[in-house]
């Protein structure tokens, strides 16, 4: 209790400017949503429920909603089915290269969805191993790849924290393996499984890039339908209503989210993990390694392979041509231009996200269940396509026409990165010893000085990590950017999608090169963050 009091005192110390930051963040997120809502009800200046009844009255809308929710459930179940055994094996056995396998499984999670989409399009596309494009199977495969890390991270640490002496005692007392699993292991890991399932469900529910690239126009979810209506059917009002439906669905899901604490540290478990003793155990370990290789590594290698494939042989031709737009690709700008466009947007967007996110995090850090924290959860409920659509709607009616500049892309990426910045900085601020600041305050130090000399240096690592995350998110952002990017200045993910949408053309090689570069840059940034922060910060997107 004393600690809580001390901490709430800290809020007062951090002052009104931070509250303003929260307000700005909320406004920034709420405005696009508001624009979407307004567009649902107002057409040509008058109030109407025509769009609402048209969209909600169509059986197709409900079918798509059911499909969207259904595929998210299926994705969660499949990921758990694959991930739980792997997580269990990786937490129980020690073997050479274990750390490497764990890292390999983490990589897809930090990659932009477009890169994952490209990876599976090469394997499960028209020129891949089997052509599953346009089926749900290709999408499930990509979702499992993307989300495997969530299971390994969240459930893996829970597995490690199961007291193995308890399990052993139970078995010694005659309990069967199954019974032990049910009564000893499961109760310990169940909350973690639940938590992982909800996270995967949410990601799959708002999945966009993967479905656009793999769905081949035949597979539709609410996200894709918003995009189709806004950019293909000249139906902005319909898109707006669907964005509202989407946001509502996510809010409902979030309200079911159980208040699971942070996953317990896996550190103590390492000693308990043992070297496989029997051939059976070695087989299990091999199976886990193989699974991670097939799911997390192979698809990414396929991108690299395809980037080198020229006609029937291999060469660096696609890599050498990054400076020029290839004839017949449809896209008339070079990959280099797309890279520059990405950097021009992602760097200012990351700065903006930090400038707004850090003060907001300070304001809410000490009250994780307070109103401010709840409000800052709001952006999670708003999908990237809604942000993009909302920004576009705002800018067509706004006082200043921002559409001709690249400012909208910067804003879109800022909005998508903001919640992650807040959520990754807030815990670091919360963990500051309150006594430090109080002592300084009693000694008469002004708040700014305390922040600059004491607090900021202590959370510098977390700020750097969130800066890296913000850059990764901004670089890979697709769902919102695709609405607002100017035609002549596509960012890397937008350029990749454009190139991939024209099969049989010269552009595929360039798409692969761009996907390689984008994947590589994001992996390196995350690796540096991880390396700089020990393994403690880790990958905490959206947790």
């Amino acid at each position, binding site marked *: 209790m004393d600690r809580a009091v001390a901490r709430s005192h800290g809020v007062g110390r951090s*002052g009104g400017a931070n509250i303003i930051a929260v307000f700005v963040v909320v406004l920034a997120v709420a405005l696009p949503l508001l624009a979407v809502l307004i567009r649902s009800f107002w057409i040509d200046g008058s109030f109407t429920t025509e769009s609402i009844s048209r969209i909600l009255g*169509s059986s197709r809308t409900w079918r798509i909603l059911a499909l969207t929710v259904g595929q998210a459930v299926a994705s969660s179940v499949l990921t758990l089915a694959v991930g739980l055994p792997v997580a269990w094996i990786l937490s129980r056995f020690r073997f050479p290269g274990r750390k490497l396998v764990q890292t390999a499984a983490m990589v897809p999670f930090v990659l932009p969805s477009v890169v994952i989409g490209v990876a599976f399009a090469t394997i499960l596309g028209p020129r891949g191993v089997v052509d599953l494009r346009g089926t749900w199977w290709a999408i499930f495969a990509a979702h499992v790849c993307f989300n495997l890390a969530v299971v390994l991270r969240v459930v893996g640490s829970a597995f490690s924290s199961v007291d193995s002496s308890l399990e052993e005692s139970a078995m010694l007392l005659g309990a069967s393996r199954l019974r032990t699993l049910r009564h000893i292991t499961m109760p310990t890991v169940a909350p973690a499984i639940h938590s992982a399932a909800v996270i995967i469900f949410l990601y799959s529910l708002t999945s966009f890039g993967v479905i656009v690239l793999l769905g081949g126009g035949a597979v539709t979810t609410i996200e894709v339908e918003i995009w189709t209506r806004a*950019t293909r059917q*000249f139906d902005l009002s319909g898109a707006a209503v669907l964005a509202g439906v989407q946001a509502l669905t996510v809010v409902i899901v979030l309200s079911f989210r159980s208040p699971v604490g942070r996953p317990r540290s896996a550190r103590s478990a390492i000693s308990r993990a043992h070297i496989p003793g029997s051939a059976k155990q070695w087989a299990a370990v091999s199976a886990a390694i193989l699974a991670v290789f097939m799911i997390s590594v192979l698809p990414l290698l396929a991108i690299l392979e395809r980037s080198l494939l020229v006609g029937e042989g291999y060469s660096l031709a696609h890599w050498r041509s990054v400076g020029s737009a290839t004839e017949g690709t449809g896209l008339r700008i070079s990959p280099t231009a797309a890279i520059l466009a990405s950097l021009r947007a992602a760097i200012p967007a990351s700065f903006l996200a930090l400038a707004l996110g850090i003060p907001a995090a300070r304001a809410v850090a000490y009250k994780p269940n307070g109103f401010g924290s709840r409000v800052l959860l709001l952006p999670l409920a708003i999908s990237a396509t809604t942000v993009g659509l909302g920004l576009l709607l705002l800018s067509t009616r706004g006082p200043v026409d921002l559409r*001709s500049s690249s400012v909208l892309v910067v804003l879109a990426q800022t909005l998508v990165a903001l919640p992650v910045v807040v959520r990754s900085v807030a815990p670091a601020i919360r963990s500051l010893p309150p006594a430090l600041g109080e002592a300084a305050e009693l000694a008469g130090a002004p708040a*700014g000085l305390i922040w600059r000399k004491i607090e900021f240096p202590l959370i510098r690592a977390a700020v750097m990590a969130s800066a890296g995350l913000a850059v990764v998110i901004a670089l890979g952002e697709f769902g919102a950017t695709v609405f607002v990017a100017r035609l002549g200045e596509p960012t890397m993910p937008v350029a990749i999608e454009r190139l991939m949408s024209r099969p049989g053309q010269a552009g595929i090689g360039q798409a692969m090169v761009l996907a390689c570069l984008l994947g590589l840059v994001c992996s390196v940034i995350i690796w540096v963050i991880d390396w700089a922060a020990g393994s403690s910060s880790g990958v905490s997107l959206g947790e």
Partner: protein
Amino acid sequence: MKRISDYLRHPRGHRVVVALMATTVIVAGACGSEGNDASQDPADGDSTEGAEVVLVTYDSFALPEGAAEAFEAESGATIKVVAAGDSGAMLAGSLLTAGSPDGDVIFGIDNTTATEVLDEGLLEPYEAVGLDGVREGVALDSELGSLLTPIDTGDVCVNVDTQWFAENPDLDPPATFEQLASKEYASLLVVENPVNSSPGMAFMLGTIDEFGEDGWLDYWGELKTHGVKVAPSWDDAYYNDYSVSGGDRPIVVSYASSPPAEVVFSEGERTEPASEVALDTCVAQVEYAGVLAGAANPELGRELIDFMLAEDWQSALPEANFVYPVTEVDLPESFVQWAPRPESPIIVDAVVAGENRNAWIEQWREVME
């Protein structure tokens, strides 16, 4: 307790945040202005020397190089092409940025979507020089006609793989819409999604013309029962699914001009087309150009549209984009030989299409998805 006033009294206190924000504003400003410079520089340049006219069009448009050079020699301005996805994405995207466009001229709006330009003030009215030389029946009436200038026409028709049908002699190539839905051709046809693809839309409108508002959905139901494949785009259908390109479907919705394209693109490998056209399944498409409202160089834009109707451009179009000119110019040999114009293609009225398109798309999706 510190309040905002404390921050004001100690402005150095939040130097980091201020610095961050300042940097952001500067960087963002620099990026923003850089983008603008790139597109507006030519306009600021003296008269037309070194000027640039920006043509917004669909991805697959190929600039007729020779004609473009002739335009540059005549006007002193270079043509910069901005590709905007397929034609549907191009139009929808342009509507979203109406008044603040990505270029000066938009080309590739067709008669199935033409009425969309009436909303949002997308285009500026312009009556092109040379409009009176345009073939009868392609120019639009009234307000639409004042905004859109016809540039070329094409015919969306069912194409069949001649070699495949030679190898399967017990099956004749289909000749009509009706036949396509019959059991013999089950799982042999690939069409394009009308939501995304303009040939897909033309084909769908063709079925509505053929079977009427009461019968067309049943027809699509039949197609679906017999395993029609709906590809997301023409590229997908033609390059992935059509058996001529290595796919497994010998019947595809493509263009009347696809056969000469097959010969020309093979660069000597083919001396004969691989496909034949079912001329009774053709739907006429007219492609229009217009001057974008708010363009940086409207004057050059109008000049470009005039030039698109001039002989250089019109006679270069067929072999660059496999479309028919709208003025009376000679057709290239490949067209004369392999791309006979269908005698009586289905003509889609732009206004009727505009009024009903959304409802028809919804109905189509209800049946097919």
